[in-house]
Each structure stands twice: as structure tokens, then as C-alpha cells.
């Protein structure tokens, strides 16, 4: 890859995405072939806010490549609590590790941190900013299930605060996908994201309901609508109820529609959908490991 760090999905050109996804597919097909590939290498995990799944996924990926992890531990017990700056923390941990994974509550944290280190740094979520490895595993899942050519995708739910949605949308512009955005008015895509998508020449269509577009979709990407976003419970209930997927909803869908969700879900997708051919969300979660293995492999380079 041309990049030393992975900070935002915006830096991923089509070739970069294809490189990572192809490598992930190779690894997926024959994980034993890379089992010792990065033996002796250490990945530094810096999680300034809890995210057990993302952290475990990176940890598993590194261990399956023969490497190991060093973990900053919880924020409460670390020097961060004593007021150490992020810039200092990353420079210290850089001395121990061959690559770093950073999760931080502030937007732009990964970009800033990357300016202070020479080892590759992967952004595992910076506030409401970016989560590019999620985007790559989403793309991997889409490619497996529906292909990335001539794709028509619907993205539904909380599009305003969903960073995974924003990163995915940017990257899909490289593949000329037709993107439909379905959300309540108060949770529409931020105007800045729309601006960027237009800059990239993408056609953006926004809808407040699923009915009109559902039959045309190859992929339906559902995200969680969080109660915290609404001033009162009744308003939340009303909105959330309209954006739930069950077997009845899917009657109008194409037989090969792929339903995705970054998980955890609450009640956006009825458990009855789990057993259908539409459901790809658990596969999507599992894909985090081969995709992160591929990324780490590309960023760590050849073992000595």
C-alpha cells in the first residue's frame, strides 16, 4: 500500500481497497499459510474508550499472524489519567510496538497521533470521525455477497452520527455504486458528507422510507437508531419503529438482497431474519479478522 497509516477511508483509492480485499480473501482461504508470518512482531493497542469487539478483532488478527499484542490497559489505570497527552502516549508506546491501533473519543485524534510516530498507525475509531477498518470489512462482505460492480445499496437508520456509514459512502464512490440513504429527517446524512459525495461525483438519493427503493436494492445496510438522539421516549419509539426490518418488510425485496448491520443491534432487525439467506451481519462481524489480518500484513511488510 502507498500509505504508512490508515487514518480515514478517504485515503483509500479503489486499488487500495482491492489490494486489501484480495489479500483478505487469500488469507481467508488458507489461514495456515500466514500463521507464522509476523512471529515476534508486536501490535500496540491504545484504546482510550472501550470497544471490546474491535479490540478483540485486532488482537485475534495479530495473533493469527503469529504476532502478539501489548495493551495500554484501561484508561483509569494508565498515565493518561494523570494528564499525559495523546502525543506523548503514542511516542512512548511506539518504542514497544511495530504498529499501533488507536481508538479515541476525539475526532482527528488518529491523524494527530500519526504525525508523532514512525510505525504504522491504524485508526480504530476517532469520535464521530472515521472507522476505516470497519469500512474495509463492510466492503469485503459486500463483495462476497453482492459484488462491488453495478451495486445498488440502501443505507438506513441513523445516518447523521454513524461514522461507519460516512466512511462506507466515501469509499463506495470509487466503485460508482448507486447509493440510497433512508432515514428520519432528523438523522439525515450531515450536509458535509453530502458535499463530499457530490464533489466525488456521486449521485446521492435521500428517502424517508424504505418501500420505494427496497425492490431495487442489492444490499441493505441497517444501522442502529439510538435513544439518546431523541429528546423524549415517545418520539424515539415512533421513529425507531418505522425503521425496523422483519420478514414482512423483506417480502418486497429481491431474493438475493443482502442485509448488513455493523452490530450490535438492538431491535432494528428481527431475529426471524437471521435464518434467511438475506442475513450477512454475523458473517460481516467475522470478516473483521481476515480483513484486519490483511491490513496488518500489508502495513507490517515482510518479516525479517
Amino acid at each position, binding site marked *: 500500500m502507498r500509505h504508512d497509516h490508515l487514518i480515514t477511508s478517504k485515503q483509500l483509492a479503489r486499488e487500495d481497497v482491492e489490494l486489501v480485499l484480495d489479500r483478505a480473501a487469500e488469507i481467508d482461504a488458507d489461514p495456515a499459510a500466514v500463521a507464522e508470518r509476523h512471529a515476534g512482531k508486536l501490535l500496540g493497542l491504545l484504546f482510550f474508550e472501550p470497544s471490546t469487539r474491535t479490540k478483540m478483532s485486532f488482537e485475534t488478527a495479530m495473533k493469527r499472524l503469529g504476532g502478539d499484542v501489548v495493551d495500554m490497559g484501561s484508561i483509569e489505570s494508565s498515565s493518561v489519567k494523570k494528564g499525559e*497527552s495523546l*502525543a506523548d502516549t503514542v511516542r512512548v508506546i511506539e518504542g514497544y510496538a511495530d504498529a499501533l491501533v488507536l481508538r*479515541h473519543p476525539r*475526532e*482527528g485524534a488518529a491523524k494527530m497521533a500519526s504525525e508523532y510516530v514512525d510505525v504504522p498507525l491504524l485508526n480504530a475509531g*476517532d*469520535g464521530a*470521525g472515521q472507522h476505516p477498518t470497519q469500512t474495509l470489512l463492510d466492503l469485503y462482505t459486500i463483495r462476497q455477497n453482492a459484488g462491488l460492480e453495478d451495486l445498488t445499496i440502501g443505507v438506513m437508520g441513523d445516518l447523521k452520527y454513524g461514522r461507519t456509514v460516512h466512511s462506507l459512502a466515501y469509499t463506495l464512490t470509487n466503485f460508482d455504486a448507486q447509493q440510497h440513504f433512508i432515514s428520519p429527517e432528523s438523522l439525515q446524512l450531515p450536509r*458535509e458528507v453530502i458535499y463530499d459525495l457530490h464533489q466525488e461525483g456521486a449521485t446521492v438519493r435521500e428517502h424517508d422510507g424504505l418501500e420505494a427503493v427496497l425492490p431495487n436494492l442489492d444490499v441493505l445496510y441497517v444501522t442502529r437508531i439510538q435513544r439518546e438522539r431523541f429528546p423524549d421516549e415517545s418520539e424515539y419509539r415512533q421513529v425507531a419503529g418505522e425503521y425496523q426490518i422483519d420478514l414482512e418488510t423483506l417480502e418486497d425485496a429481491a431474493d438475493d438482497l443482502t442485509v448488513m448491520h455493523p452490530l450490535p443491534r438492538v431491535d432494528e432487525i428481527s431475529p426471524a431474519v437471521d435464518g434467511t439467506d438475506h442475513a450477512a451481519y454475523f458473517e460481516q462481524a467475522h470478516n473483521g479478522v481476515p480483513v484486519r489480518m490483511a491490513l496488518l500484513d500489508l502495513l507490517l511488510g515482510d518479516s525479517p
Partner: protein
Amino acid sequence: MSDDHELRVSKIRDGTVIDHIRGGQSLNVLAILGIDGSRGEEVSVGMNVPSDRLARKDIVKVEGHELSQDEVDVLSLIAPDASINIVRDYEVVEKSRVERPDVVEAVLECPNPGCITNADEPVTTTFEVLEDGVRCAYCGTIVREHIASHIQE
């Protein structure tokens, strides 16, 4: 005619004349330059003066202060048509149009409270200049209006 209008704002001996500011923007220009008269500097402002190039323009004359490139860069964000005249001993010794830079560094504050540039970290604010605003290089927030109010203290 235009000479006549120019006369409405007194000539300066040494300093900067910023001409062709979009009508009504002169106070923002002064804010950007951090000039509020509190240091005793002599400042003349002409507002909504008729102009050939712009329907109405503002003019700012600051005695004893030559603009730096950084100041001109930021100025360009709110006064893209401005011309800068550096005056020494009543003569214009340098005349230039502002040019919009690609980025402005260490000048603006990010309005996003969650941005890493607003944490206590050693990071220089950097804004990419767009056609119609500026965008934080760290968090991506776009500022289109009242750019002058985001000037760092």
C-alpha cells in the same frame, strides 16, 4: 470619481491600505488582523463606498502596520477581492491582490468541541480552503459563515 471617494478616507504615511473589501466586511477584516484601536494605532474605515469593481466596497487604512503573509492569507478568506497596498512615506511601494491559499495554519480555531485540536495537545490547527469556506484537516468540520469569529485568540 473614484479619486474623490478615496479622499473620504484620509491618506496614511506608513502602513497598509486594504481596498476592495466586500461591502460590510471591513470590521471583520479588522477583527482578523486583531486591530481594535486599543494599542493606539490610527485606523480609518470606509464602509459601503461606491466602486466600479464591486457595487459597494469597504476600505481599511492602518497606520504603522504592514500586513504579513499570514495575515494576508486569512484575509483572503473573507475578502477574496481585496487589494493590499503597502505605503511608506505616503507612497504605495507594493500593491498586490490577495490570493487564496490552499491551507491556513495556526490561525483559526475549530468550532467542533470534540476535535483533537481543542484538546490540550501539541497540534497546530490546519484548515483546508474550499471554494466557499474552510475545513478542519483533523475532524473535517466545514466553516462557511462567520469565519472571522473563529480566529484564534
